């Protein structure tokens, strides 16, 4: 069985609309149309069979200069794990101070990828600023 998938390439600003014909049993791309370069074909292949994204969000902080610290996955994770990862991170709370690239969660949503702090976050100095 072959099937068609349409996607927009994001490798460069041209934004080609690529149509890929996929062999569902063999998990292979039979043909491409619409891409104007090889990088587009490589992008489409990854995007169809193993789409990945870097997840960036925030995690609650106790006693910090700010109430949340921005965090990211150290590597891109499978797109279909993003929801689970967000849920897991929403339940976490860390204590200030937080160091730059401190590991916040060693293995998020079973992906084997760590979640790290995007910035150092000092503790709130005594009185509330503002």
């Amino acid at each position: 069985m072959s099937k068609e998938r349409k996607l927009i390439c994001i490798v460069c600003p041209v934004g080609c609309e690529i149509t890929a014909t996929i062999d569902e049993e063999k998990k292979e791309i039979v043909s491409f149309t619409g891409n104007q370069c090889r990088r587009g074909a490589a992008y489409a292949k990854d995007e169809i069979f193993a789409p990945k994204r870097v997840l960036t969000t925030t995690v609650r902080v106790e006693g910090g200069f700010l109430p949340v610290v921005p965090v990211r996955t150290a590597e891109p994770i499978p797109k279909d794990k993003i929801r689970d990862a967000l849920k897991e991170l929403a339940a976490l709370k860390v204590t200030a101070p937080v160091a730059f690239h401190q590991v916040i969660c060693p293995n998020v949503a079973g992906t084997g990828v760590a979640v790290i702090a995007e910035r150092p976050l000092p503790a709130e100095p005594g009185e509330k600023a503002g």
Partner: protein
Amino acid sequence: MRKIECDVAVVGAGPAGLAAAGRAKAAGAGRVLLIERDRELGGILQQCIHNGFGLHLFGEELTGPEYAYRFITENQAAGVEVLLGTMVLEVRPDRRLYAINRRDGMLEIQAGAVILAMGCRERNRGAVTIPGTRPAGIFTAGTAQRFVNMEGFMPGRRIVILGSGDIGLIMARRFAWEGAKVEGVFEIMPYSNGLTRNVVQCLHDNDIPLYLSHTVVEIHGQERVEGVTVAKVDEKLTPIPGTERRVPCDTLLLSVGLIPENELSRDANIELDPVTGGPVVSDEMETSLPGIFACGNVVHVHDLVDNVTRESWLAGEGAARLVQGRQPRGPLLNTRAGEGIRYVVPHRLHLANLKERETTLYMRVREPAEHVRIEALLDGEPILSVRERVVRPAEMVSVKIPPGSIPEGRTATELTLRVVKEGERG
């Protein structure tokens, strides 16, 4: 009143101020003082927690805070001095600044050179005038970004976004990830104002619809936004009667553009470019007032932080050259936006610099186009032509002029940039 003297004073510590201060120090300026009104360094980067910064400069996709951290630690090591929580109120043509903070009260700072790096501000609802009530729940996208990413609370649960600028697209995804319902992004133009990458990864990934040639024509709700009426627009961007539709929501985000923050420049009588909204600058990033430089979003709105950094390095270098008496001398020529180009920065180029170093011109095109050339004409004579597969108003175009492109001994007054359709003869 406390008085401070320094060689270079930098106003604003976003990526522009950070890079300019660091480079001024590295290029040999003595005392460099970085002045920031916020309680920490980094500017807008601290709220841009998504990745995508620094790809061109470092070959890595950093997040905003990571990008800022690099420069903050570099500056610290180099000995750049920092004044936080300090707001600059006035810039005098003799390079004296007046500032205020909680510890010192009023401050007078006499600098050898001043670098303006105040960034930009978001256009607000006033600038797009939508009829209807004035309930709570209307925010600029950047304000919402600060609430969610730095202050840790969600300003709403059911969101409509007006304008497809990058900040709006990024926030659409952020709200969707935080469990809010994003009803759609409505863009008045027939094309998106954001990067394709953001349309794909923020909207398509999360099944958020993008309505092109659409706008919000009315806002409903008494205390709080309860909904908006949207409509299709014609080629003249006027709403088409009969296409109105009501969309329930509790929050309207505006992502309708940025304006350089130039109150200080205006008060100092610095010449501003009416198109960019920022100061007219030379290739040293010097404004019309000698010794006062400017860089980053205060000069023109950038879409990539990498270009902000490059431009700010020039400003830092320029300021250091000035205080050391190494400024280039001799004639300047003007750049001009020709056919298809909306503006060109910098506005003036030293012939001496053109001879010695590569010069990058930044510009925006008026309309999207494919298969074009960007041509540079020196007093009407083509000296350079660069092919572009596609150009879009949302993506800044840069053209590099290699050193020595202008023949020795040649006097010239104007360099015009224009868009030529491939295949046509200029």
